[in-house]
């Protein structure tokens, strides 16, 4: 039987989901923002960081569309939920020097959207929902 249809998380998910919010653990700090098709920050998104081996961190965006979490190095899979998304998005974060089969499936001219850039000892990775630098999202 087909899986039940997804529906948007809506604008009020904090009521049900914030109990599991975290800041992550590990030596690498990842910061970024979620930006919509108008170039505006998305203040009502929630990201789930899935690490290899079952590590998990849920982090909402703030009023500036910003998020921050700590993690150990290693390719991260990120699920993104927000009002306006009838299904969640799946993407990945690669730290400098990392690669895998999934990254090889991404057109070369879009791979940069998945790479965390090291700046002042932290890592910057943004989610761009639409436009020239639209983040690569995976169909799964």
């Amino acid at each position, binding site marked *: 039987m087909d*899986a039940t249809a997804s529906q948007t998380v809506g604008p009020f998910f904090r009521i049900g989901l914030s109990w599991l919010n975290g800041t992550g653990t590990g030596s690498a700090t990842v910061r970024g923002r979620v930006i919509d098709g108008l170039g505006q920050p998305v203040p009502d998104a929630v990201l789930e960081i899935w690490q290899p081996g079952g590590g998990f961190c849920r982090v909402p965006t703030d009023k500036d569309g910003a998020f921050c979490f700590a993690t150990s190095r290693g390719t991260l899979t990120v699920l993104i939920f927000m009002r306006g998304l009838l*299904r969640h998005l*799946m993407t990945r974060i690669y730290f400098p020097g990392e690669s895998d089969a999934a990254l090889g499936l991404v057109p070369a001219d879009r791979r940069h959207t998945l790479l965390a850039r090291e700046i002042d000892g932290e890592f910057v990775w943004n989610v761009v*929902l639409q436009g020239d630098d639209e983040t690569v999202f*995976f169909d799964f």
Partner: protein
Amino acid sequence: MSQPPYLHPPYVSSRTRAPLKPLVLLPRAEANLKGPVFGHESVRPSDSDLTKQHTGAPIGERIAVGGRVLDEGCKPVRGALIELWQCNAAGRYAHERDNHDAPLDPNFSGCGRTLTDADGNYTFHTIKPAAYPWGNHENAWRPAHIHYSLFGQGILSRLVTQMYFPGDPLLAYDPIYQSTDEASRDRLVAHFDLARTTPEFALGYRFDIVLRGGDATPMER
């Protein structure tokens, strides 16, 4: 098409938030990832009763909502975490950004959690949520619904959805509900269930959920 598209123009906020470039297809084996495991140290039995989280009882029609969580092979998913949230019986969420002119209920927070048992069964007790207006289009009202978030066996089984109530006239006008094909959206509507109805106490509804994963071969006939 059993899942909604990302871009669904009648749902206005999808226009600026849906990805527009092609998605990159990830083979199942490459995409799959084990997820967090939740146990009864993080989810207490009392978390599934939204009517008993305050000193008084919430206003509204008390209901029991339950069903089974299955995988695509129709096998029960045990230990699945279900997170649930909803507005109150007046159509207002206990959320600082809900400015709908309807009363808050001091005895209702509208959130709950539970884990499925060994047969994939779950039950929540709550009150029936109400419709509320939203700004999507002229005279837009969301049909009454309960938000569900589920964790199954791995990342591919992750699901966020909404449960609706049978016979709601607003379903025909709701672009979120209407975003999938008819067979799929029909399954988002709970069934009134007399067997789950507790005499003198609460009406029962059944809402079964299928998560991705498992052996998707058709059941034997």
